[in-house]
């Protein structure tokens, strides 16, 4: 109780409340505009939050992170275009509902499910916080290294069909982190005798280039889309009642969201996939999924909104970000000399709980805002794409230039912007680069510290948590390679099954020939020879 009171004390400030309001409303707006995701907004706002108190800055960013998915459901349901990437699954069941004239029901259901997911995860984590506080100190250098390694491997294998290039890009991220002066021996690494490379490649410059500028270039290069809006009719509160009729789907999806959010590198997509599959398999009407099923919508929205709060666990408890957005937030902590990790959970538990309470308040604020303002809010969907591109270009300048007032930073960000643009055009992921940069830095420091007292390789994993993490890494790799092998097998089968007739006939003759040549074949021939002996045989 004392903990809760001291946490409320941290939050009870005008600037924090204002940040909460700005973050929640801003996040919903950003989420609702297709083409501007939370990553773009957080990247742009990051340098602006450096001058604020840690709790104020983090509340704004958390607000955007937590509320953008609420906003992202609006265009997903109304115009079949997800506002943020994680709302893609919402279009499966949301848009068919709009098509049959139930847009308001779908929206209200999505809001209610998102609200449930958000609240469920925050409550779970506040309840788990004391246990986490006990487990977190058991993580030493070796465990944190292994957890970061597990995170990077999970990010790579999550990109199914693109795992090789995701791995190469993650390695590129690790490499970017090594550029500059090495902190222990003070030797230069890949600076090519250029003074601007001596201090290394700044994470925020890369983030702004890869997420904000690349998105601006992408929108500027594309065309404006014509949007046809649907008029909303009916009450907004019916979703809450409908959600109450599916407590099992909502509860399981929320749990998937919490668990998947806590594992670094997994996140919303896996949580959504698992909960959607569960909801479909356990539903009485599985045939409705993908055609406007309320259960499908609940599963997708609950799971993705349960993730943000859970994703803060590895960040706060171990200092390991599991995705690009939390990686960006990590830099806010570093700027304010608040080092996330086991120490934070032990010494500043009230700060951690305050962040969770802020998320709780945020969900309530967003729900109230959306229930009353959706009619006006849907107009932002109509903002033309190329105009948005111009706006992002101007806003990106604030982000990059305000860091160090350096034109070189802007040039580097522009180069990464072009690189990110090419990645976007090729549908290749940029997230592994950012995670490679952040986790690479953590792994370098922790491996050096962890190896200091290690004599044999087994010493590295002789502690229980290190062993569990090591086994998890092996398990993930085993599952991945098994999946690759099964895919290969399926492709081989597909190859054979689509062979044309003449090859099949040739194969048939070949099999017949080999059969005849075998033992059984020989016996048959011998038998036949009895009745029709050769003329040269002795009688």
């Amino acid at each position: 109780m004392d903990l809760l009171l001291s946490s409320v004390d941290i939050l009870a400030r005008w600037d924090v409340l204002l940040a909460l309001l700005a973050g929640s409303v801003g996040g919903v707006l950003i989420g609702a505009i297709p083409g501007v995701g939370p990553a773009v907004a957080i990247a742009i706002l990051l340098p602006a939050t450096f001058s604020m108190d840690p709790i104020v800055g983090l509340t704004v960013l958390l607000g955007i992170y937590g509320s953008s998915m609420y906003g992202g459901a609006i265009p997903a349901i109304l115009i079949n275009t997800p506002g943020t990437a994680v709302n893609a699954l919402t279009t499966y069941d949301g848009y068919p509902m709009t098509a049959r004239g139930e847009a308001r029901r779908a929206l209200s259901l999505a809001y209610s499910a998102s609200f449930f997911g958000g609240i469920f995860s925050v409550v779970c984590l506040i309840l788990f916080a004391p246990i986490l506080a006990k487990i977190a100190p058991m993580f030493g250098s070796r465990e944190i290294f292994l957890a970061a390694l597990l995170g990077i491997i999970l990010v790579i294998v999550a990109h199914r069909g693109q795992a090789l290039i995701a791995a190469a890009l993650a390695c590129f991220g690790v490499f970017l982190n090594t550029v500059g002066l090495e902190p222990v021996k003070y030797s230069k690494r890949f600076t090519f005798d250029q003074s601007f490379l001596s201090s290394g490649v700044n994470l925020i410059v890369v983030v702004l280039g890869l997420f904000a500028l690349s998105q601006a270039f992408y929108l500027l290069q594309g065309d404006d889309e014509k949007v046809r809006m649907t008029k909303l009719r009916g009450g907004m509160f019916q979703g809450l009642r409908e959600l109450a009729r599916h407590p099992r789907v909502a509860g399981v999806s929320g749990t998937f969201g919490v668990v998947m959010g806590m594992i670094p590198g997994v996140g919303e997509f896996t949580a959504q996939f698992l909960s959607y599959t569960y909801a479909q398999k356990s539903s009485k009407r599985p045939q409705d999924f993908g055609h406007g099923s309320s259960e499908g919508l609940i599963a997708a929205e609950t799971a993705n909104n349960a993730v943000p709060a859970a994703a803060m666990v590895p960040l706060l408890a171990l200092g390991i970000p599991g995705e690009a957005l939390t990686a960006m937030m990590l830099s806010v902590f570093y700027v304010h000399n608040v080092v996330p990790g086991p120490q934070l959970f032990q010494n500043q538990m009230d700060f951690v709980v305050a962040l969770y309470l802020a998320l709780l308040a945020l969900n309530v604020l967003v729900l109230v805002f959306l229930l009353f303002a959706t009619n006006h809010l849907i107009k932002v969907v109509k903002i033309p794409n190329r105009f948005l591109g111009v706006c992002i270009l101007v806003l990106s300048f604030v982000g990059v230039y305000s860091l160090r007032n350096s034109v070189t930073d802007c040039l580097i960000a522009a180069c990464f912007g072009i690189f990110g643009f090419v990645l976007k055009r090729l549908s290749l992921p940029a997230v592994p680069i950012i995670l490679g940069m952040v986790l690479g830095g953590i792994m370098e420091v922790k491996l050096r510290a962890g190896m200091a007292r290690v004599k044999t390789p087994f010493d590295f994993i002789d502690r229980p948590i290190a062993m569990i993490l090591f086994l998890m890494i092996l398990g993930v790799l085993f599952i991945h390679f098994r999946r690759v092998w099964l895919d290969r097998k399926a492709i081989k089968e597909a190859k054979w099954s689509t062979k044309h007739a003449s090859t099949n006939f040739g194969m048939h003759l070949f099999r017949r020939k080999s059969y005849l040549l075998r033992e059984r074949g020989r016996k048959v021939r011998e038998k036949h020879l009895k009745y029709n002996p050769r003329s040269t045989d002795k009688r």
Partner: protein
Amino acid sequence: MSDPKYSTFRGPLRGQILFAIVFLLAALFLMSQLGDQTKWFKRTKFFAQPRFWPMVSIGGMVIFGGLHLWKLPRRKFVTADYTEWKIWFFAIEWVFWFLAYVMLVPLIGYLPVTMVFMPIMCWRMGYRSKSMLWISVAFGAAVVVLFKSFLDVKIPGSLLYEYLPGAMRNFFILNF
């Protein structure tokens, strides 16, 4: 490179091969510079060597980049590839616009440059309606007021502001 019909690769094929080749060549170049650009210290543990992580990361880039190129669906360059390269190349125009904006802000001032840059860019993008141009000017002004005046983001005052009379000069340098 594998047969395009039976590849597990996800994503559009246009432009993929060139990207993979350039990525691999860049990684190989970095690998060739490993000895020059990093140092190996005596009496220092293997994992604490400054060369260790660049070696691991560049090694990963070469191996995974090479495997990615090898497993990409095999295909000759077609028109779609050439169009894609053109799109990449012409995106450089936006970089020039952005850099011009960056260069002009310290000279002319954040507020005037942003208020002019927004409508010019909108014009370039094909918006000709007066309302759109006015909206863009208003957006530019709002961005400056929000970030520089309220959030106190560090963007220095311009050279042009130095010529403003007394109190105006300070006011503009601090707020716009």
